[in-house]
């Protein structure tokens, strides 16, 4: 009995050494992680970040509003006196509802609405996320790394 017990201890010890051999091989490899806040990885070409808009490209077709599964977008427009030109009165985006699916970007006929590369979206007040004015060109300026 004692012999088996001691043997098992030795076999267990040996298996630990074998496992350590695998980890030892990995010690000298290059680290695969990044020191995140210091080193930042560039986002990929198709990365889906915050919703962004080129206001001048929008033709007010309401397709993005209709496709959005979470009703995160809100668009309003008025027709000018000449009964032809339409003007956007409001175009807001609720980042707390958005699920970053990218369907609005896909359906937009003029590529006016798109998802940018922003991923650090901490705000001091969560109310700021509820209605981001997409018409303003200052929309993401205050966030570090914000583009557009």
């Amino acid at each position: 009995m004692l012999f088996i017990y001691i043997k098992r201890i030795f076999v267990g010890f040996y298996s630990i050494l074998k496992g350590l051999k695998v980890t030892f091989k990995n010690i000298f490899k290059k680290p695969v992680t990044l020191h995140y806040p210091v080193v930042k990885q560039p986002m990929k070409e198709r990365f889906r970040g915050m919703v962004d808009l080129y206001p001048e490209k929008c033709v007010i077709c309401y397709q993005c509003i209709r496709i959005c599964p979470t009703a995160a977008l809100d668009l309003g427009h008025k027709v000018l006196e000449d009964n032809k030109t339409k003007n956007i009165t409001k175009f807001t985006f609720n980042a707390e509802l958005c699920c970053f699916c990218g369907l609005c970007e896909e359906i937009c006929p003029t590529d006016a609405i798109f998802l940018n590369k922003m991923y650090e979206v901490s705000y001091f007040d969560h109310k700021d996320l509820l209605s981001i004015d997409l018409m303003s060109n200052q929309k993401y300026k205050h966030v570090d790394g914000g583009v557009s």
Partner: protein
Amino acid sequence: MGELFTVNMGPQHPSTHGVLYLELVMDGEIVLSCKPHLGYLHRSIEKIAENRTYTQFIPFTDRLDYLASMNNNLGYCLAVEKLLNIAVPPRAQYLRVIMAELNRVISHLVAIGTFAQDLGAYATPLFYAFRDREKIVELFDEICGGRLTYNYIRIGGLSGDVPAGTEQVIKDFIKYERKQLVEYNELLTYNVIFLARSKKIGILTQETAINYSVTGPMLRASGVKWDIRKEEPYLVYDKFDFDIPTGTAGDAWDRFKLKLDEIEQSLRIIEQAIGAIPEGNPVSKVNRVFRGSGETYMRTENPKGELGFYLVADGGLMPYRCKIRSPSFSNLGALPELVKGLNISDAVCVLGSLDIVMGEIDR
């Protein structure tokens, strides 16, 4: 018999893989009975499906089994395509197979890593698995722009073609992963401590497995050769040559080993699919407004088992009813049977070997 007492494990517990709450009746260290309580992650996804158009619901399927979003997208899109008789271009079919298999690989990698961690192998195997998984996650990020919720597969095709150079990345990954599998075997599979902890623990017999309608790797580990990809081939699975690995004992170790074997088989499928991928445009151009009527049931082989979508349409823009049959839900059902009479630390081992995801259990 000493005094019985009840232990509440979870809902916030590192080894319950999400917000699962287990009510264990214990006699000392021995588990006498176990009662899983669900519902902490309930988001009424089935009801949401009734209020969204067919296209709008695809992002929500990402949130079912969030470790295998591609497979969920695929299952739902196949169900809608079957309901509305929509044809899929051949290139899209091949790409779908590749994406589904890559996702199976990374889902199994997470399962392997977390299982080793549940057995007390601290963080090393988990980080090794995540290091490998990261390569595919990065690739998916490049292909569809998401790292966890891919939302890539569309009704009638895909949201976009893969960028140039993807083939090479996948080929490199296959080569790399084959090498890694050897490392996993060295580090875990045949390690005597690992064997002592997981062999003959939580034995699921064939009969019990079938009675609890357990599916996926868990069923195959019990020795039942059942895989929807072979039994009811969808997409182009019938064109590929691959085996269905099965276990013999149905214990926790078998379930672990089977996942490693399945990774190898998935790599085989991907290899063949990459070689045979036809030219063409996989992007779905069909109108995003779908209408149809009738009902259909479509099941696919998810990494965790059989994922079924039952759709009823009444001619409107939205489905009348969408019932989701999720594999983890049925697999978890067998847990009380498996942990009876085990130590509490072995119960954690069994739970880890089930490889459940709460997202699709609570839905």
